[in-house]
C-alpha cells in the first residue's frame, strides 16, 4: 500500500505529475490516493521530503 506521511508532505504536487495511472490528487493541502494505484513506487522517488512510501 502507498502511504502518505501527512506530517512530512509539503503539498507540492510533484508526485501527482509523475504517476502513470493518475492515482494521486492534490487537494489543497493533502494528497489523496485512489484505487488506481499500482504501488509502482515511482512517486516515492520524486518526493522532495520523503513523505511517500510503498509498504507491504
Amino acid at each position, binding site marked *: 500500500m502507498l502511504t502518505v506521511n501527512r506530517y512530512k508532505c*509539503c*503539498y*507540492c*504536487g*510533484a*508526485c*501527482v*505529475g*509523475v*504517476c*502513470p495511472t*493518475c492515482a*494521486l*490528487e*492534490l*487537494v*489543497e493541502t493533502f494528497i489523496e490516493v485512489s484505487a488506481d494505484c499500482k504501488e509502482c513506487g*515511482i512517486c*516515492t*522517488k*520524486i*518526493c*522532495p*521530503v*520523503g513523505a*511517500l*512510501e510503498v509498504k507491504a
Partner: protein
Amino acid sequence: MSMKCDVVVVGAGPGGSMAAKAAAQAGLRVALLEKRQEIGDPVRCAEGVGKRVLSRMVKPEPEWIASEVKGARIYAPDGTSIVMSEDRGGAEVGYVLERKVFDRGLAMEAARAGARVMVKTRAIGLLKKDGVPFGVSAMRIGEPLEIEAPIVIGADGVESKVGRWAGIDTTLKLKDIETCAQFLVTDTRVDDQYCEFFLGNDIAPGGYVWSFPKGEKLANVGLGILGSRSKPGEATRLLKEFVKVHFPNGKVLEMVVGGDPCSGPIESTTADGVMLVGDAARQTDPLTGGGILTAMQAGIIAGEVAAKAISSGDVSREGLKEYEDRWRSDIGKGLARSYEFKEFFVKLTDEDLNQLIGSLKREDIAKMDLRGMLRVLFRLNPRLLWELRHLVV
C-alpha cells in the same frame, strides 16, 4: 449548482491568470478557478525572471519585486567561478519576484479585465457530451458545481489533470522532472547582488544549486535534482547539506518544495475544446527550470485564440490549431533546444564541468548572451561538446 461562460481557466498561476486576462479583454465571459484558498501560496518557485520579457507582457508593480540583480555567477564543482551580467545573462536573471504578491497581482489584473475569479474551487473532471468536453465539474468550498463552457484552458501546473482528462498524456517521466527543495536563508555570507548557480554531481545530481537574492543578506537557496537520480527525500537532504557547508550560521525563514517539468515540448497541447498552458503543457525551460515567463506567454496566446475560436464557432482541436502553432514558434523552438542541452549536460562528469567553466576563465564573456557563451564553449571544447555542434552554429 451550475453556471455558464465562454471559457473556464483551471489554475490561477501566472499562465492561467494571463490566459483569463487576455480572454476577458477580448470580451469573453471567463471563469478562473483556483483550488487553493489563497492564490500564490504556498510558493513553489525560486522567483527569478528576466526583466525585458516580463515588461513586454505586464507593467511590473514595485511590490511584486523583491530585488533586482546585477548578474549571474556560475560555480564549477572545483569552485572556479565565472560571471555573466544581467543583460548578457539571458532570461533567467533580472528580477527576483515575491510570487505570493505577483501571482495575486496577475489574478487581480484578470479580475479587473472582467474575469470571474473563484478560489477554493477545484476542477475534478471535464463535462463531456459524445466524448467532447463542454466545461468542467468542480468542487467549490466542498460543494459540487458544474461550469459549462465551450473552451477549457488547463493551467493547472505540474500536477495537471486537465490534459489527461482530455486524452493528452502529460505524465512526466522521472528523467523529465527536477525535484526541488529551497530555503529562504538569511546570512552574512549571502551575495545579495548576484544570482548564483553551483554545479556538481555530488551537490545536485542532474541539476544545480541556486541562490537568488531577495533582499539584504537574504536569498532563496535551493536545488533541483533529476527525478531519475533522486530517491525519497533526497532533495531536502542535499539542500540541508549544502546550507550547512555554505551558510553555517544561516537562518531559515521559509521552506519550499516542488517539481519542475523538464521534458521539453510535448507532442500535443490541444484537444477538442481544450488548451494546456504553462507547467500543465510542460512549457518550462528544461535547462534552467524557468517557467514563469513561458507560462505567461502561452497564456496570452491561449486567451487570444480562445476569443477567435468562440467567435468563429469552431472550438475543435483543428479550430484551436493556431494556439499550437503560435506557442511552438514563439517559445517552443527555444524549449526544444534547451531540452537537447539538458539531455547533454546531465551526462557530464564533474571533471567535464570543471573543464568547461575553467575554459571560460580566460575569455571575455562579458558582452555575451547564453547562446554566445555556448558558442565560445564549443570553440574551446570541441571534442567534449561534439554532440551539440548542430545547436551551436
